[in-house]
């Protein structure tokens, strides 16, 4: 009996020590968190491997920084808390630079930009709104203000679906388009599913997220209204880094400079988006 106990103790000890060793061997790697569910920014292929614009860009930036990297997956709604709690050191997850997020974390310079858009199913009453092609909300001009008014009227009493904790949710909560019935989902996939099922009258997200979904699913999803940028939609997408981690922030800023100059960002962006979304 005692012999067995001793053996058991040895096994437990070995397992614990090996855990410690595994933990320490990763210590000098830069860990980058991404969602893996927001194509074409970041997603997963059929085998579960992380792919997408930001995954490829992350490897490129790490090469310029000259340090080993590891990309880890994290649910979107826990992204910033996980960074703060040191689960990883940087966020590259299609996260727009907004004033609200900058209260909690720092951002590198932007590496890409996207416009947001409303989407509906073909045949919706929201199709054919008389609005400009795109509006900027940082300093809205007369046309932008008029477009917001048109949207306020069209969306009154409608259910608009967004992913939780996104710039799109912030925009709808800001009241710029009046009181709409906002429904929040954990992932963009779920937003797409409920848009297709008809539970949502409209959905708001990155325009590319909808065109990607329409293309892959074959569902008649169409973009309506103007595309949005500026204001609540932030100023481009950057790398999120802890506030006290200025060394890493500088390293990423320099790496982005180099990657931009060498044309890496444009090249990778064009590959994944079909157009040059770099900035």
């Amino acid at each position, binding site marked *: 009996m005692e012999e067995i106990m001793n053996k058991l103790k040895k096994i437990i000890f070995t397992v614990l020590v090996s855990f410690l060793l595994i933990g320490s061997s990763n210590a000098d790697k830069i860990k980058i968190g991404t969602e893996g569910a927001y194509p074409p920014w970041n997603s997963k292929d059929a085998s579960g491997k992380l792919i997408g614009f930001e995954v490829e860009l992350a490897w490129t930036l790490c090469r310029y920084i000259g340090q080993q990297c590891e990309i880890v997956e994290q649910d979107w709604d826990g992204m*910033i808390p996980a960074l703060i709690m040191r689960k990883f050191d940087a966020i590259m997850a299609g996260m727009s630079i907004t004033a609200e997020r900058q209260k909690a974390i720092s951002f590198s310079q932007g590496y890409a930009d996207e416009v947001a858009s409303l989407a509906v199913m073909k045949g919706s009453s929201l199709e054919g709104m008389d609005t400009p092609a795109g509006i900027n909300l940082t300093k809205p001009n007369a046309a932008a203000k008029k477009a917001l008014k048109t949207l306020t009227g069209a969306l009154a009493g409608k259910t608009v679906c967004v992913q939780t904790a996104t710039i799109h949710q912030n925009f709808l909560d800001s009241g710029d388009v009046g009181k709409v019935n906002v429904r929040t989902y954990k992932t963009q996939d779920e937003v797409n599913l409920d848009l297709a099922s008809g539970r949502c009258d409209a959905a708001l997200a990155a325009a590319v997220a909808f065109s990607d979904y329409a293309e892959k699913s074959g569902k008649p999803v169409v973009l309506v209204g103007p595309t949005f940028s500026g204001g609540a939609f932030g100023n481009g997408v950057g790398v999120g880094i802890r506030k006290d981690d200025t060394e890493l922030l500088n390293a990423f800023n320099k790496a982005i400079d180099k990657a931009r100059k060498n044309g890496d960002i444009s090249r990778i962006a064009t590959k994944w988006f079909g157009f040059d979304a770099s900035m």
Partner: protein
Amino acid sequence: MDIDLMITSLPKLLIATIVTLKLLSLSLIFGLIIGLFFAILRLNKNIFINKFAYGYSYVFRGTPLLVQIFIIYFGLGQIEYFRSTFLWVVFKEPYWCAIIAFALNTGAYTSEILRSAFQTIKPGMLEAGRSLGISSKIIFLKIQIPIAIRQSLPAYGNEIILMMKGTSLASTVTLMDLTGVAKYIISTTFKPIEVFIVAGSIYLFMTFIIHNLIKFLEKKYQY
């Protein structure tokens, strides 16, 4: 630790608790009806009826509640034919999808709790009733059901608490219950620990109330 955030989020979370309590009470009422119905089927001698009831409880006790909600909410919503039926009026709403999933889930457990409670009733009690010439319907309503309810109180109390915690999954289908609002506050403050501590305390307090209520009922109906 951000104490201010904990204090300011408390009223918002308490308002959201009303949604949680509504979900819980409606699911428990429907679940009890379903549970009683299937418990009676389980006691039926007909093998097909018996196996059907067993199959129901086996499936719903053997799969995670989260999966059941997802199938009912996202799964059924994908079937185009289903969306054209009158059922879609109910299933379009996340609120009713959650209640249907919760009621079916707790109904499965309740049916097992009630079945075992019925089976613990000593045959002597029923024979005593029959020997007095009481009809079997009255025996069922006035003897079997009250004893079964008393027998099942401790187990059912546990089920209520489990269901209460289970309602937190309603937030996965966009409902703004206690967990949903907690997540919403976190999405703008990025401080999960503070908010979840407050939300967790509210859940704990509800458990405390339910636990004591069941204990009180157990004492009251002692025999």
